[in-house]
């Protein structure tokens, strides 16, 4: 017996017959559950938590005093010897990998694109200051259509690599890098300079177990006064920036107590970082500045069948963008990704033989987009395999390009 084949109409008719599903909670139960949850979220910490905090109030100053005495003992002889440039190499390169476990595999460069530092690429070092290249949030306006179909100039956020001065501080732990980024006047958090947070944040702490970051404020004058636009931009920048580092939650505390008033958001204890990164796309402003935007943020496909895309699938998605998009693919048009072979921490990207990269700048942008993307997978190095690299390898690194792993 041969069965009939399904046609579009059959499928549509069956979909329409799927039964209604009713909520079995009563209206009253539902309202009580909502009220309870709202109340729980507004409640102060539990007595047990407060008790623990009280313990810390005497423990912390004691530890700080001990640490201060210890530091004085350490630092004084050091200064008297005049030998405090311990993190500089003899060839005058700022070796931020000294005491820095996030970049221990390269030769002193902290170069997100993996380009050699003597080729005119962005230099990650400074002779006098401790300056490093970090991904930072950035805002720009684009002419596009909003979610309600209205065309206009809308503010969008992305990330870009920017040299950030971390002053004399030699501690390049991720906590410190985040702290400097949050408090740096060089970074655009979507808030006016007059309301900069540089004098409000006391510390940044990472909880690896919960994949969360806690930002502790000791002053909240500016954060409380954020306008509606500033608060929204700040929220977006937080999602964008901390999403890059794969955190799942951002917690706010004031002098170690949960919650801070953030403009119109009111009292905020934590924000979820809802999206995984899956692919970066490129926006170029009128002045030629480049920003990378996350696929999840701009509504590009990042999942299939409820699962996040693989590295290879993500690269496939990055080749083209949604219709009418205000950003573009960072992968030149003639390039096709034929295969990606991942071995342990290395991804070899096989490109079509006819693929060409018109300029070195396009190559740098491609590398930057791909290393940003690879950062979301357990990939530490990428290499290109294809005809185009013959020419490019004379001016740029095309093999074993380091992916910064924060």
């Amino acid at each position, binding site marked *: *017996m041969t*069965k009939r*084949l*399904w*046609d*579009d109409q*059959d*499928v*549509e008719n*069956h*979909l*329409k*017959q*799927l*039964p*209604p*599903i*009713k*909520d*079995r*909670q009563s*209206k009253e139960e*539902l*309202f009580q*559950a*909502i009220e309870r*949850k*709202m109340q729980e979220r507004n409640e102060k910490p539990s007595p047990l938590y407060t008790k623990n905090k009280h313990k810390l109030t005497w423990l912390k100053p004691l530890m700080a005093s001990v640490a201060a005495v210890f530091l004085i003992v350490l630092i004084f002889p050091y200064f008297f010897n005049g030998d405090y440039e311990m993190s500089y190499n003899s060839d005058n390169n700022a070796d931020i990998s000294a005491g820095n476990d996030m970049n221990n595999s390269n030769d002193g460069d902290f170069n997100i694109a993996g380009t050699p530092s003597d080729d005119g690429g962005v230099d990650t070092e400074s002779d006098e200051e401790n300056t490093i290249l970090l991904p930072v949030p950035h805002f720009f306006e684009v002419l596009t*259509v909003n*979610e*309600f*179909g*209205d065309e206009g100039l809308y503010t969008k956020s992305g990330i870009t690599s920017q040299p950030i001065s971390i002053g004399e501080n030699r501690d390049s732990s991720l906590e410190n890098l985040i702290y400097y980024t949050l408090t740096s006047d060089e970074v655009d958090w979507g808030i006016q300079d007059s309301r900069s947070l540089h004098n409000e944040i006391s510390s940044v702490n990472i909880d690896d177990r919960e994949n969360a970051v806690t930002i502790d404020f000791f002053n909240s004058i500016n954060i409380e006064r954020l306008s509606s636009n500033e608060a929204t931009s700040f929220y977006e920048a937080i999602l964008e920036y901390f999403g890059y580092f794969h955190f*799942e939650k951002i917690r706010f505390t004031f002098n170690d107590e949960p919650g801070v008033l953030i403009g119109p958001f009111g009292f905020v204890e934590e924000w*979820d970082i*809802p*999206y*995984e990164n899956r692919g970066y796309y490129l926006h170029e402003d009128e002045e030629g500045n480049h920003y990378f935007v996350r696929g999840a943020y701009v*509504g590009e*496909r990042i*999942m*299939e*069948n*409820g*699962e*996040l895309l*693989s590295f290879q699938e993500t690269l496939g998605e990055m080749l083209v963008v*949604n*219709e*009418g998009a205000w950003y573009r693919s960072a992968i030149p048009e003639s390039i096709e990704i034929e295969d990606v072979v991942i071995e342990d921490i290395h991804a070899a990207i096989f490109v079509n033989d006819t693929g060409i990269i018109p300029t070195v700048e396009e190559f740098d942008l491609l590398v930057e987009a791909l290393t940003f993307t690879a950062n979301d997978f357990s990939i530490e190095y990428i290499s290109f395999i294809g005809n185009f690299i013959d020419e490019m390898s004379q001016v740029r690194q095309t093999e074993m390009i380091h992916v910064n792993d924060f």
Partner: protein
Amino acid sequence: MREEFDRLYEMYHQTLFQYLFYMVRNREVAEELVQEVYIKVLHSYQSFEGKSSEKTWLYSVAKHVGIDWIRSQSRKKRKWVGKQFEWSEREFEIKDHALLPDEILVQKDELHQIYSVLKRCKEDQQQVIILRYIQALSISETADVLGWTQSKVKTTQHRAIKELKRYMNQIDSFNEVKEVGE
């Protein structure tokens, strides 16, 4: 707050619950998520600017809540498994009625199958199918909820139907081969 809740409940509750249910495919989760939707809506009701209709605004809040939950589950599962979960090409062979809600269990087999294969569609395709065919929203309402153009809704709907048709034909072929074998 109570008055606002009563009004929203009477007007939209069962449709929002149904939407969340078909998105997450679990009654208990949908119950939790619908509470989250109310919390978000009641918190931000004053900021609703009326640029879209109240109905599509509520749907779009529910969509965000549902998608956030789905992604958080994917993340948990990915961490736990330690690698990307791969969909079995022959998953439809496994008949697990425990996964079907009561309302669907009592329906004919073909409805069980279409409910099951809907999960195999891409996330954006599932959204369009649920909104268009199960929630019976118009193209323009669906576009509003998803923040897409109407042409994107039409294209995605077309592709989704094609995918579902392919899966349903696969199931029929498989069952046919099985019957012959028996």
